[in-house]
């Protein structure tokens, strides 16, 4: 007992004697920690600032100027935005984008969910099915676009050959304003559903089978269990997938370049494709910047909705 008190005492005096040094050392330690942390963050921060934050700010600034022929810039304030508000093609592209999102997102997500629930069950050929569903995602987009281009080709294409079997005349699927959007939507659903399915499948495999069994003992039907247990527990995945789908629907451009060039009569022009055209075909970079700001605002709105509101309403494990 006495021994221990002595030891404790000696340690305390030790500590007291060295405490100014200790605290100075602790101070410089904290400083070093901070420096180290920033150094570790630096590469990522540099990349993020150089290629994300700075371009955003530059774009916003650029949208407030116009570039004259001699290369000098002139401040025009919100003139470009006024011009945009009066631009029918901009409104057309925005509307197209809305219908495109509405056509692709709910269907591809619902399909993904159904396929995931189906493939998640114990059955033969499960691995093969999973791979089959995932294939559209791993194919290069150029190849995908060309395959679908063949499907939609008038007269020779797969679709028209099938119509021919029933004695129907050929149809210019991508050349008709009334069908071109539908054709794009079908193709994108085909491409996205398999990708989203993988996320749902991963989430389903995290769920304990006990939950379903507990529900079945209580007499819950399959559908009731899905509605009250499985689906709510998949909500984090659904949110993630929805956000991705919305962003993808604004990012689609490569298929348009290959398949429709936004036509006919701008019937398949989406916002990002319009920006691409304005910037590189019409060489009007300040108007392109203006359109880009609109796109950025839309996407940030979605991000805010996710982080500010939806995350708080969803049960995370």
């Amino acid at each position, binding site marked *: 007992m006495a021994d221990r008190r002595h030891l404790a005492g000696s340690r305390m005096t030790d500590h007291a004697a060295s405490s100014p040094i200790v605290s100075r050392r602790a101070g410089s330690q904290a400083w070093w920690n901070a420096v180290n942390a920033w150094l570790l963050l630096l590469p990522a921060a540099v990349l993020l600032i150089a290629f994300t934050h700075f371009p955003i700010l530059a774009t916003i600034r650029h949208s407030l100027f116009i570039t004259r022929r001699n290369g000098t810039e002139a401040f025009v304030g919100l003139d470009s935005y006024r011009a945009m508000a009066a631009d029918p093609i901009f409104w057309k592209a925005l509307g197209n984008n809305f219908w495109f999102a509405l056509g692709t997102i709910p269907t591809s997500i619902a399909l993904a969910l159904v396929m995931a629930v189906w493939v998640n069950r114990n059955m033969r050929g499960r691995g093969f099915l999973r791979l089959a569903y995932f294939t559209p995602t791993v194919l290069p987009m150029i190849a995908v676009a060309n395959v679908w281009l063949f499907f939609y080709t008038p007269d020779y294409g797969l679709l028209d050959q099938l119509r021919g079997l029933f004695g129907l005349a050929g149809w210019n699927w991508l050349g008709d304003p009334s069908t071109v959007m539908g054709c794009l939507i079908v193709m994108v659903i085909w491409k996205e559903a398999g990708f989203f399915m993988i996320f749902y499948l991963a989430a389903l495999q995290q769920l304990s089978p*006990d*939950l379903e069994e507990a529900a079945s*003992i*209580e*007499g*819950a039907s399959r559908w009731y269990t899905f509605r*009250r247990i499985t689906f709510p527990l998949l909500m984090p995945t659904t949110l993630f997938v929805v956000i991705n789908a919305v962003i993808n629907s604004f990012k689609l451009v490569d298929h348009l370049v290959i398949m429709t060039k936004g036509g006919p009569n701008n019937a398949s022009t989406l916002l990002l494709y319009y920006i691409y055209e304005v910037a590189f075909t019409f060489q009007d970079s300040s108007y392109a910047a203006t359109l880009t700001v609109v796109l950025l605002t839309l996407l940030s709105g979605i991000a805010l909705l996710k982080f500010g509101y939806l995350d708080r309403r969803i049960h995370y*494990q």
Partner: protein
Amino acid sequence: MSAITLSHVSKSWGAMRAVDDVSLTADEGSLLVLLGPSGCGKSTTLRLIAGLEDADGGAIAIGGVDVTHLTPAQRKISMVFQSYALFPHLSVAENIVFGLRVRRVSRAERDARLRRVADIVGLAHLLERKPAQLSGGQRQRVALGRAIIAEARVCLMDEPLSNLDAKLRHEMRTEIRALQQRLGMTMVYVTHDQTEAMTMADRVVLMRDGRIEQNGSPEELYNRPATAFTARFIGTPPMNLVRQGDHLIGIRPEHIRIVTGGDHAARVKAVEHLGADSIVLCEIDGQPISVRSDGFSKVQPGEDVRLAWEAGHEHRFDPVSERRLEASVQDGRLATSVG
């Protein structure tokens, strides 16, 4: 009517016979414990009763009705899972009334029953919480609440206490048993812990490799183990089994005394002091044997002692089949080792 009867029930996973020709009866209103080491087929047997697995052969009846081919819901049972299987996104209240909602019980009755059950399991103040905000013991109570609110006559439990600490386990053991008796449920309770089995059960079914090793009251399993396996499984510490020549003899640690002039020489290997008594671990002819002695035993490891027990306390087993040899103990003919 809620007795459970299994007749010649089997279930295999490939070549592995998880449940092999099991027949048993849990009387109405009684608590039957399925006991055995891990992997012996207890959970599979329970899941067969629940209808979560389909039997390969045999018949299962609940309350005299053949339920072998009925769905879990049609069997009108409740079940507590080892993992508790609480719905993580639902509140305690919603977890408990889940089954009532499925069956479209009216709101008024649901609330009344919830209040009653919450009082019984002591959760009245936690009804709005999510399972993640509860302690292990509280989660256990939610699972219990969900099982009893249905007022099913049959309740199945799969190692419900294995995730709790020792003190809580002791408490819940008593509570579950009291609840079962108060509500008059027929309960099948799976555990690998023989203490739980001995303290709670009306009937214990000891399983080994998918087969029933012994089926009897706790007292029978303790006092008249049918096989050496049962003898080794029941009791803390379990029965000592000593080979003497071509005999296999079992003696409970509490029936052995350390006395000068006892007729078995032994060497003390270690001593465990439990407070009220001590377990002295000895060795006879290289075979381990444990001795329970009252109070704080003074013997030291390495010491040579002499052990004695009464012939009437000897259990004899066939050295090959390890089955109990009845006659020998009763007539005492072979009781040569009286001290």
